[in-house]
């Protein structure tokens, strides 16, 4: 037999009356902090401060680990050791694939001096994911897990709802968004917490286009730290701009936020460390082999001249429309596998500051990496085709817009 909600509540009130007593409840510090961080006058400055601290710790820790520690191991020990001991040596094709493709100096090819330049499966293929990305990913997940376990995220969702609601999402969309800043795959998966098809579709498309993952940010931090602020800003503006447009065009309802705001909790060190480890392990398991595979494929494509062919074929689009060098074709292919790898490759291409910014934006928005692609397909089914269409439109308009901005500024 089923009760109506009212009958059910009537019964519960009666049960509670007989079994439940509330003693004196004093307002604790925890409640006070709970109110402080959700009321706009105090909560919004607090949220900005939290995000600022998050970003500062993220970038400084990652830089410290990579520059102060990882680079020394990889460039001073690992690379020279492989260059000395790997069978074949310079000139051998297998050596070039695995260890060092070498640097062109005039007509001669000389040994690379860093794992960034050597572009071998065992050198760059390991250095990029472990030396650069791993520290970034670890510190990101440590802080994210901490915020999650304390119970801050729902409050952030309430505060940001005002803005996200204007583009047809609601505050809860901040969760997939922040998760995507670690890795787009769990971000896309988390779109399930949104209620309607329209919201899920929009969220997924926006994530795949405008949110760079932790691995990519980690490499950006290493290769182009001076432009990262502008690039992130351009991407976030795109997120809101295209969110706004999609919301206007797409049919479907935009539900209101309705959610529980749990009390703050004392975080458990065990839970946080476990969570950080599991997420990091996910990266080691799936990210590292993919970067190595990516390096291998890219090298092979270069050797057979396929990338050069594509670069020439696509040159009008690259140079004419997007205003980036035609060599961007290589990184864009790499980006299908791993965006971090693509950014690292961009770093090796000769170009102006503005072209670099355009190229990084292009790598970010033009297509999701294969892992995200598969997850989007799994989560959205047929709607995925629509996602691809939206993606195409955005790449050409928003990528082209940047070129236009440079032209207007007279720097293109």
């Amino acid at each position: 037999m089923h009760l109506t909600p009212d009958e059910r509540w009537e019964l519960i009130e009666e049960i509670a009356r007989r079994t439940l007593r509330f003693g004196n409840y004093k307002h604790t510090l925890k409640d006070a902090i709970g109110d402080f961080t959700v009321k706009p006058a105090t909560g919004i400055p607090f949220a900005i401060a939290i995000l600022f601290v998050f970003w500062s710790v993220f970038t400084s820790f990652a830089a410290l680990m990579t520059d102060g520690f990882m680079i020394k191991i990889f460039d001073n020990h690992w690379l020279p050791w492989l260059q000395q001991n790997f069978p074949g040596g310079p000139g051998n094709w297998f050596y070039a694939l695995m260890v060092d493709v070498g640097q062109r100096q005039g007509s001669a090819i000389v040994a690379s001096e860093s794992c960034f330049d050597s572009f071998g499966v065992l050198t760059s293929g390991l250095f990029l994911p472990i030396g650069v990305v791993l520290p970034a990913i670890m510190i990101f997940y440590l802080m994210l897990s901490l915020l999650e376990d304390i119970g801050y995220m729902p409050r952030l969702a309430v505060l940001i709802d005002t803005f996200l609601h204007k583009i047809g999402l609601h505050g809860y969309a901040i969760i997939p968004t922040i998760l995507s800043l670690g890795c787009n795959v769990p971000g896309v998966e988390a779109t399930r917490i949104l209620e309607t098809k329209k919201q899920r579709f929009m969220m997924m498309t926006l994530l795949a286009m405008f949110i760079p993952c932790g691995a990519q940010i980690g490499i950006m931090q290493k290769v182009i730290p001076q432009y990262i602020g502008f690039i992130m800003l351009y991407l976030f503006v795109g997120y809101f701009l295209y969110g706004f447009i999609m919301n206007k065009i797409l049919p479907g309802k935009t539900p209101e936020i309705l959610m529980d705001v749990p009390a703050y909790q004392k975080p458990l060190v065990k839970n946080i460390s476990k969570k950080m480890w599991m997420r990091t392990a996910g990266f080691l398991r799936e990210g590292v082999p993919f970067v190595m595979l990516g390096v291998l494929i890219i090298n092979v494509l270069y050797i057979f001249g396929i990338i050069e062919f594509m670069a020439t074929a696509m040159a009008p689009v690259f140079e004419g429309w997007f205003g980036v060098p035609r060599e961007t074709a290589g990184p864009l292919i790499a980006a299908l596998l791993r965006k971090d790898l693509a950014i690292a490759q961009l770093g090796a291409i000769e170009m102006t500051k503005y072209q670099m910014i355009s190229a990084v934006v292009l790598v970010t928005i033009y297509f999701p990496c294969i892992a995200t692609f598969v997850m989007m397909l799994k989560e959205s089914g047929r709607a995925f085709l629509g996602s691809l269409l939206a993606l195409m439109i955005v790449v050409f308009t928003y990528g082209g817009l940047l070129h236009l901005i440079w032209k207007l500024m007279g720097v293109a």
Partner: protein
Amino acid sequence: MRISIDRMKYNQEGVFVGINNELRLHLAGMGLRAGKKIKMITREPLKGPVVIQVDHASISLGIGIADKLIVEVDE
């Protein structure tokens, strides 16, 4: 006096009267039922959501929901 939840003042208390749409079932699951005492915690600016307290739980409601929820408050 009967007003919608979004018009309650900070810390004001009221008794929930009801809502008449498909969200009723869901709200009931979150503890929001007719006759229940609720308290306004905060209201976000620019038509943002409200946060109310029901029993010992805080719930956040979008303004589009809050303006349909009626409470009985003292003058």
